[in-house]
């Protein structure tokens, strides 16, 4: 019987000279889900993927992929994993179908049905009509879709997708998300790295937030946000509130900021149940132009753990 986890990373450390790129990182990826590595640029996400794939050697710790050790069984593992790197490494002067043939020659164990599979995947990624065109003529989103089709060609169990929608327009982004979710439905395991909170929130079943190579949170996006216990409140008044600390002293608030002269932003515990009270308090001496109460985002989770926004 297959184990629950597709990937197990245990206390892995990787240094580049004096820089610790990945620091004592541990996490497990369940089979058949989408696991996210979320963090700002330079956090160590791509290094982590390279370590899992055996492209880099870990200086400490162990990594198992599909119950095999990456150091000693990498060739067997490569039969069962697909990888879409950040820099889409396609042959730009070859056609989409020729890129797939090249991949098939290198990766596909069973070559008997490869032609049908190519057709199926090119249809799946909406590229069948453009299969004979040079990849150079493709948009960023089309290249990423082709790279995904290529990674799926040898029917891998686990697919690593580094920054799936980097440089892709909104339409292309939604199409890619849909493709990834459809593949999850048929049992594929995805590991994606991203610095896009919406992407992590939309796609990932579980994720690890990485900062400076360390895991600062590991859970489902929902649990991470729920654990915050604070909602984010943004209000706009006239005139401006001059002493917000005094005005909101009856409420459990924190992180008060004034993003604009008449605006106020803060995190408040139980904002959803005390909305009426809050409005009454504010409108005693001010005109309330707008109020927005939002659940905390993953950015707020990151802010909570690191003291700075993910987008910084």
């Amino acid at each position: 019987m297959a184990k629950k986890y597709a990937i197990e990373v245990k206390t892995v450390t990787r240094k580049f000279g004096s820089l610790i790129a990945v620091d004592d990182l541990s996490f497990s990826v369940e089979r058949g889900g989408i696991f996210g590595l979320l963090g700002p640029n330079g956090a160590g996400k791509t290094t982590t993927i390279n370590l899992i794939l055996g492209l880099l050697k870990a200086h400490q710790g162990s990594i198992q992929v599909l119950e095999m050790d990456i150091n000693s069984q990498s060739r067997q593992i490569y039969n069962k994993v697909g990888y879409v790197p950040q820099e889409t490494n396609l042959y730009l002067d070859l056609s989409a179908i020729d890129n797939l043939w090249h991949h098939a020659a290198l990766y596909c164990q069973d070559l008997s049905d490869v032609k049908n599979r190519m057709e199926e995947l090119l249809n799946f990624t909406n590229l069948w009509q453009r299969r004979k065109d040079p990849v150079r003529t493709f948009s960023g989103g089309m290249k990423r879709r082709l790279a995904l089709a290529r990674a799926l060609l040898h029917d891998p169990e686990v697919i690593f997708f580094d920054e799936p929608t980097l440089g892709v327009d909104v339409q292309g982004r939604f199409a890619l998300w849909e493709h990834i979710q459809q593949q999850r439905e048929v049992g594929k395991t995805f590991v994606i790295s991203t610095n896009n909170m919406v992407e992590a929130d939309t796609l990932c079943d579980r994720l690890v937030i990485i900062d400076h190579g360390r895991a600062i949170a590991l859970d489902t996006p929902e649990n991470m946000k729920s654990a915050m216990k604070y909602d984010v409140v943004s209000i706009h008044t006239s005139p401006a509130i001059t002493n917000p600390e005094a005005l909101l002293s009856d409420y459990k608030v924190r992180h008060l900021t004034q993003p604009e002269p008449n605006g106020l932003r803060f995190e408040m515990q139980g904002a959803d149940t005390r909305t009426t009270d809050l409005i009454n308090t504010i409108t005693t001496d001010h005109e309330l132009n707008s109020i927005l109460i939002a659940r905390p985002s993953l950015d707020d989770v990151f802010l909570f753990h690191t003291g700075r926004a993910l987008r910084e």
Partner: protein
Amino acid sequence: MKRYILLLRSEFKLFLTAPVVHLIAIVQPTLMYVLMSIIMVVPTFEMRLMNPTTKQGENLLAAAEQVGSPIGPDYIEPVLVEDASPGHRQVVQVVEIDGTPTALQRYGYIDSNLVKNLRNRLTAALMVLWNNELGSQGILIQEHPWLPQDIPYTVYFGMAMIPLAGYLAAAMIGSYLMAQEFENGTILSYKLCPTSFRLILAAKITRLVVTSLAAAIILYITLGLITGVWSTSLIAILVILLPLILIASCIGLIAGMLTRSALPSFLIALASAFAFWLLGSGFGLAAGFSPLFEIISRLIPNTPVIEMMFPYFYFGKKVAAQPLLVNLQLTAYVLGLLIAVGFIYKKRILSKER
């Protein structure tokens, strides 16, 4: 086998990623040969004594015509079969021919080298003039071909460029495509693939061999069309070229893997091709040069290849070094480089970054 054919097909498709490099590598030697053979093959050119104003000049011109000299400038150093004496005086032996003591001076018959031929013929013409004065005491001039069947220089030059054509195509295309894989990040597909690296390298080398043989055949056909000389066995020439092309393929792939950059690897391939050509009997068989040059030249794979090609080309007459030793030498080069390519592939592509 199916995978090998698929890999081979993919390798050929990579032509589309560097069509200009392919064009340069395949056509350049042929173009060089066409241009240089046009420059070199000048049937006649003006000699200072074309319109002599003195009696001696008229006599020299007549003598030059008598010995069949292509009319050219006044070269003075003849190429003698015997070495010159310590005082650089020309050796004239007195031998008996048909019972008559005859002063004999042997010259290399060098139709293979137009320049040398000109000066030899001119010297011979001067001898004829002298003979006219000496009468029955004259010097007998004999031409001694260096090779059993002398080679017109345009033919030799072209034939010696066939190995260059094969080498250049294999090394240049091999190095460029391999380096390009690193530059474009497509090498990642090779790093993570489960297929045996031996099979991948076999497909890459096969593709280079086929392309390079095509380049050699293009030059061979051009050579035949220009000179009218065709080999007795094209297959034999291609078989002889095979080890050199394997060597070039390996050197090209190694250059690409070591530099990981298209321009330096391209230049390495180009430089090595021309160095091998110049040192490897590109302008004449190694035995025709100094002993030291011959030793160096025989270490270059082009030399044994050229020497093996010529006996086949020249009606089966052997002018080469020992075929067994030559074959052993080439086999050792090929095996050594194949092992080196495999080793470097594992180190540069398959091994983990530490």
